[in-house]
């Protein structure tokens, strides 16, 4: 069944076309800008919902045109893509609301929202890329679109962060280019296809295939913040809160993790990758990242840095799930793609609210903030507990599957790893909750003097996402829940 192939294109274009308009709008046209932002974001959610429905009915969307002889620019909406697009579309909508509130009076709003849109367009492109070549194009676009967001504040620190970010990610992009080229030269195609496209190469030239794996995974690993390519992520924390939220939850690190999925599942094919002996090292790398990120997180006092290291750790769950080469773990990995996004975006938005409303930026300043900003902190707490992996919250579901997948794959150490990681998660999240809820704020004169009203546009988004954290965990088994969809995807990737 094939229908009009242009629906993916429309979805891409919604934000791609919004971007120049937003750039061109004068700084003062705030209402119009907000209108366009929200309108387009909502439209996108609707389109994605429609697309998802169609895809679940078995419709295949495929739009492509030739860019270089033999090489196509190809958009394709498969279930895996839908998984990622839905995340980005929904969170974009929420983050847009948040950003509008956050940047209410800030400078350079036209620029910000222009790049913001571009960033989402790039994410959607990454999701729907039908071959590695297209993926590469959007991957680089994402880098470029996020750079101005990272340095939005225009301070020395922001610029330094931006430079490091740029160098890491562009170097990663360059390696990806190398890998894409190598794939093209070796296999004669860069298409994504469940089961992989490299079978012949593997039999002919095992070493080349192995090196290709290293190159490709290393390249996307930069964005996925795999240790030792993670250093940019905590530094990029100087960005405004909505940007951090987007970076961590939807766009950049997810693009990396998603890339790992595409590479392992659809370039190599999981069996091939396993046969190459590459999944175990990848799993080991993910494991190291998980532990390392958590260990580093414990020592951070800056809230956003702590969250950033937590991201380093959490995103590698996805990699781990992919690398375990078990369908059950894969379900966990894919589900975590969504779940981590929801949890982390909640926490970043909450952190942004703390900074905005109370000027609290460090963990050591968090005493008593729960009382000052109960809604925000409730959201934060929900997400934090979900991260630790408490049922029925989102994080539990993915951890459960990862653990089961580890057993399924005969890798019992995964349990120990998850155990250790969760312990560390608890070690760095619980003190925050402790301070927020069980300590009194320093300034006791008067009734919560530091308390400042934040607008609903700031308050509502984290609460919304926290509810979603609750919902995707609590109704994990419901039809069209991320988990269900994930099972659908995994069935395809494992060609069951």
């Amino acid at each position, binding site marked *: 069944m094939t229908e009009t192939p242009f629906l993916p294109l429309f979805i891409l274009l919604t934000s791609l076309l919004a971007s120049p308009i937003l750039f061109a709008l004068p700084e003062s046209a705030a209402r119009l800008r907000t209108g366009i932002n929200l309108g387009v974001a909502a439209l996108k959610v609707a389109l994605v919902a429609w697309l998802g429905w169609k895809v679940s009915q078995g419709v295949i969307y495929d739009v492509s045109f030739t*860019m270089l002889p033999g090489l196509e620019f190809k958009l394709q909406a498969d279930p895996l893509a839908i998984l990622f697009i839905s995340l980005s579309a929904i969170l974009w909508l929420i983050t847009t609301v948040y950003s509008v509130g956050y940047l209410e009076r800030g400078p350079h709003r036209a620029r910000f929202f222009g790049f913001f849109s571009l960033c989402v367009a790039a994410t959607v492109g990454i999701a729907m890329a039908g071959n590695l070549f297209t993926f590469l194009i959007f991957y680089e676009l994402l880098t470029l679109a996020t750079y101005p967001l990272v*340095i939005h504040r225009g301070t020395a620190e922001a610029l330094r962060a931006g430079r490091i970010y740029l160098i890491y990610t562009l170097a990663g992009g360059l390696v990806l*280019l190398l890998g894409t080229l190598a794939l093209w030269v070796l296999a004669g195609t860069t298409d994504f296809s469940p089961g992989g496209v490299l079978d012949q190469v593997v039999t002919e030239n095992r070493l080349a295939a192995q090196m290709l794996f290293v190159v490709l995974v290393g390249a996307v690993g930069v964005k996925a913040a795999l240790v030792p390519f993670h250093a940019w992520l905590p530094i990029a924390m100087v960005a405004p809160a909505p940007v951090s939220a987007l970076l961590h939850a939807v766009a950049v690190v997810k693009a990396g993790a998603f890339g790992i999925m595409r590479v392992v599942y659809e370039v190599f094919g999981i069996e091939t990758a396993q046969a190459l002996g590459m999944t175990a090292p990848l799993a080991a790398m993910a494991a190291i990242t998980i532990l390392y990120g958590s260990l580093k997180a414990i020592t951070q006092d800056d809230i956003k840095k702590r969250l950033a290291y937590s991201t380093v750790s959490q995103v590698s769950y996805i990699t781990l799930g992919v690398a375990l080469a078990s369908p059950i773990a894969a379900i966990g990995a894919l589900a975590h793609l969504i779940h981590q996004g929801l949890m982390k975006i909640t926490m970043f938005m909450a952190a942004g609210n703390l900074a905005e409303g109370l000027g609290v930026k460090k963990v050591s300043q968090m005493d008593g903030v729960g009382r000052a900003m109960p809604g925000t902190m409730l959201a934060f707490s929900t997400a934090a507990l979900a991260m630790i992996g408490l049922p029925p919250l989102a994080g539990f579901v993915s951890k459960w599957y990862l653990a089961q997948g580890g057993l399924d794959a005969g890798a019992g150490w995964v349990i120990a790893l998850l155990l250790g990681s969760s312990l560390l998660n608890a070690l760095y999240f619980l003190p925050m909750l402790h301070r927020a809820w069980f300590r009194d704020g320093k300034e006791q004169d008067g009734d919560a003097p530091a308390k400042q009203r934040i607008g609903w546009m700031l308050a509502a988004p984290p609460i919304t996402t926290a509810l979603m954290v609750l919902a995707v965990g609590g109704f994990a088994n419901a039809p069209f829940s991320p988990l269900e969809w994930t099972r659908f995807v995994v069935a395809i990737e494992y060609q069951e």
Partner: protein
Amino acid sequence: MMIDPLTLSIFVPLFGAILTFVFPRVATVSALLAVLGTCGAVFVLALKILAAGEVLVPLGGWAPPLGITLRADGLSVAMLAMTALVGLLVSLGALESLRDLRQRQYFWPLWLLLLTGMNGVYLSTDLFNLYVMIEVIALGAVGLTVLSGTREAVRAGLEYMYASILGALLFLMGVGFIYLQIGRLDFAGLIAAEASGATSAALALMVVGLLLKTALFPLHFWLPAAHANATAPASALLSGLVVKAALYIFLRLSTYMPLPDETLVTLIGALGAGAVLWGGVQALRTERLKLLVAWSTVVQIGLIFIAFARAGQAGLTESWKAAAVLILAHGMAKAAMFLAAGRIKDEVGHDRIADLDKSEIRPTLAQFTFAIAAISLIGLPPSLGFIGKWSLMEGAMAAGYWHWVAVTMIGTLMSVAYFSRVFAGFLRFDRMRGELSEHKGWALADVAPLTLAAAAISLGLMAAPILSFIELGYPFGAAP
């Protein structure tokens, strides 16, 4: 009554030059008309090429080797088109940025003569004619280089002049050897020639002469100062177009004449690598914006030569395409970047990179243009520069020439590093002394480079048609 478009594309700018020189009062109008006319001629020519593959015009009715024949094929028309497009937009940009009346009075005739020379180069099939043409270009280019009249500009212009003359003379000497050996100077004769001592000598002389003119490392010594000190439109023309003429001749000759040795190809690639690395290092440490852009030209030229050498001697039948794409990409992006840099310098009042962030004036659009142009120069998708780099690396990989891949990657990283110095200057706001003040806003001088930069980016999406277009007429005689 129809005059063939080849002739027109040379004569229209020539008459334009004459008119603008004789009637300075209407110089602007006549110059724009001439450039537009050239564009039209090139467009008609492109249509003809699409239909016929190649077009020959034996001037004077004399067939080679006695006469000189103009020949157009896909590659030459692509170069013509790029030149026309860049030329048109730079002309539009120059309308505003050249405020000094006397500067403008000389800008137009010199630029139109330059255009004449370049179009002549792209259509020529005769070695000696090429020599004359590069001299036309050289004089026009030197005149443009010193247009600003500052001491640095004149000094750079003189150095450029020396290099230009020497390069041309080396070329001429090579022409002498060729004539000595085969008694004719047309390309067909070259193709038929057997390798011999004289052709080798000729090749050595001509190649080095051309490398000097195109400023390949280590013969780049004249370029950065010349390009950096010229006024913005002149810089754009010099960097975007002028160096390409010699490059184009090199491309033609190296495939028409027997390059008897793999070592030579490797040497050229190695020089390209040197350019990429050395230019990159210099761009990293330079203190002025325009100088940085000029060093980036050195880098890009190096990259083009790597593309040329990417797959060794055996790969030349394909490698030229990668080089050609990079030439086209660089032409547009670099012109845009120089124009943008000029705008920034005009509005901010200086072009010291370290102090860009102290300025209260931020020419946003020019900065944006600079950034997009940088995307193509760095070679990020989907720009044309990316396509060029892709082709380069693809060929090198397929041939197993990993060293070129490595150099390209290092060069890319370095370009990110030095361009991000500039971006940092654009986007940092905490060093300003006062409030952000309004800059002049939209202007024609902003639109022109923006269009160019956008073209450099978006043409990457049309890479497939472009690649098939430059193959029309089999520029290097791949198939009958």
